[in-house]
């Protein structure tokens, strides 16, 4: 999983730049920024979420393309398919805390990587990478004054297990099956 996100992240930069230009052209960046600031200031308020949805799903917006503009990337433009060795799979499972377990799970993972491989075909030479469309915005700074906290009761209500005023968690990370155990599981799934 982690590898997929890494791959996507790397190549996404070119893509996100394009989408940023798109926003800048149609004047949407202002709206987006407003939303951004409001969300920062009044998080968790429902009318705010509502506002976002309303704007993005406005049915008569001519700026949104009516039909898909993408086309599939020819396979010969992709790097050779990746196969995941067993111990890397082990490591990925530990990192992601996701259990692929079966041959099918493994195939699914490899397919996901294959899908992300298409990003290699995006031309990014000479394009300065961006982290987000907010890269040219200045960071909002806050005064060092206490404005929140002291809500242990409310927060603890969200947790299934508490003791006194503590959250209760399982003891450390749960051990995953060893490589030998894995091999057995894979065999059985065939």
């Amino acid at each position: 999983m982690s590898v997929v996100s890494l791959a996507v992240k790397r190549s996404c930069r070119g893509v996100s730049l394009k989408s940023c230009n798109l926003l800048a052209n149609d004047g949407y960046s202002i709206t987006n920024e407003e939303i951004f600031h409001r969300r920062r200031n009044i998080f968790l308020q429902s009318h705010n979420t509502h506002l976002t949805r309303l704007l993005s799903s406005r049915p008569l917006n001519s700026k949104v393309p009516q039909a898909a503009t993408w086309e599939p990337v020819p396979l010969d433009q992709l790097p050779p398919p990746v196969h995941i060795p067993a111990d890397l799979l082990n490591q990925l499972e530990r990192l992601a805390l996701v259990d692929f377990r079966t041959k099918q799970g493994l195939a699914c993972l490899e397919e996901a990587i294959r899908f992300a491989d298409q990003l290699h075909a995006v031309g990014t030479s000479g394009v300065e990478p961006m982290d987000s469309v907010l890269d040219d915005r200045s960071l909002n700074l806050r005064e060092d004054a206490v404005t929140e906290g002291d809500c242990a009761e409310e927060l603890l209500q969200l947790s299934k297990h508490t003791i006194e005023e503590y959250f209760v968690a399982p003891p450390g990370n749960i051990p995953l099956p060893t490589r030998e155990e894995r091999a057995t599981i894979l065999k059985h799934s065939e």
Partner: protein
Amino acid sequence: MAASSVAASELLQNMNKHISILYPKASYVIRRISTSRQRSDSQPQLRVKSAPQQLVGVVGLEVHAQINSNTKLFSGSSVRFSAPPNSLVSPFDASLPGTLPVLNTRCVEAAVMTALALNCTINRTSLFDRKHYFYADLPAGYQITQQRRPIAVDGFLDYSFLGGKKRNQVIKRTVSIKQIQLEQDSGKSLHDDLRSQTLIDLNRAGVGLMELVMEPDMSCGEEAAAAVGELQRILQTLGTCQGNMSEGQLRVDANVSVHEPGEPLGIRTEVKNINSIRYLAKAIDYEIQRQIAVLQRGGTVQSQTRAFDSKSGETVPMRDKEGLQDYRFMPEPNLPPLIVYEDNASLPTGIDACQVVVVQAIREALPELPAVKRERLVQTYGLLPEHSLTLVNEDGLVEYFEEVLKATKKEPRKVIGWVTKELVGHLKQQDMSVSQSPIAPSALAELLELQETGHISSSAARRVFQEMWRSPGKTALQIIREQDLGLVSDTAQLHNICQEVLDSHPDEVNAIRGGNKKVLNKLMGLVQRETKGRADPVLVRKIIQEKTS
């Protein structure tokens, strides 16, 4: 290993081929490249066949300093030590969905101020990243830190300590500061092994930290301890961190390796769990000796994380996760780049003044740093460098010393011994701070004034000092009267005592007459013993000289 790491970093830079990180060998190295802790990695393994001659230690430090601020780094909940569990937690600190980080100006200013004091280059633009790991006291599953571009880089810290055989020689050293980065602290876990569960307190989660990375420029525990001590004083002077190690406001991890000078660095271990400066020195020296012993037995040092056990004074291996750690750094999407401005002229038009951090303003507000203070003491009062070191090292001692000076005509060079030896000696013995001293500066000044004007001898003054320490509130004059410690300057009485001493030591008298003037001091000592140190030394010397000539 070195070859594979070079290959791996080339692959990393080649974005189009990044899929090759899937090969397990390379991914092992990439984990290291992506952390801020790369340094002595990718060094060839140090193999020692024959017994090595001069293995020396190499020490680098990672210091986490809790920023002294009212609120956390990205949320408006307060920062306090030992509050009821989970009482200082906002929805963002508990990482509830929909919450967003808002950076605290004070934390940025504190980092910039610290960076300036440590001679760093401030990055005009710095970036925030997510560093992932799963731990219950890190509710978001990642820590926001500064991995790609920290707020400050390339600084140095000058420090000095007393060395040499008599521990009175000031030894000066410099350690490079690689970088200073802003990051979030984690919460605290209380492990209940009995019921096999972990209790989580998020009060500390999200508190602002400055991580300072010091290059491996140190060679032993003493140097590391002195460097951290100086850093602690700088942070406390700036007020950017309270610097209390036992409360975890200053946490130090040491990277230790050994090698033969001139050779590449050896495999290093990381020592954690050190909660005082004294233990830091002990842990490092133990670890250096342990590694030397391993190599001399023909073994190899393993790269691992070790914990210091203060009871046994040893380092022990911690649960080893090295091979499995992959932080999967990624840019923090909710925080645009942090920009600081050099001066008011460089501010963009129309920007809100409370929304900016201006380096020039912070530079102008820097207080007098410990090194400058020491230099000033040496210059102003004609003190020795080692005295200035002792004065500045004790919290409040400089102020105490200067208070005493104001109230006495005694020369600073004569006062300093009383402060650094008598006072500090007594304080240390009872583990007290300067502010807890039972003898106020004015009281000590009074005592020194009495000695200076010839009312008491220096040895009597010492006894008065001890008595003042034992019974606070009594003045020096009261004690001198009560215990009859005043100087005996009755010439007739002193004549008699001197005569007695001379009569019972004919050999010494002959020696003096024969030209050995040094023996005179011995006789003077005997007279002082007779008078319990109360005889006026000038008078006694004159009398003995007269009687032996």
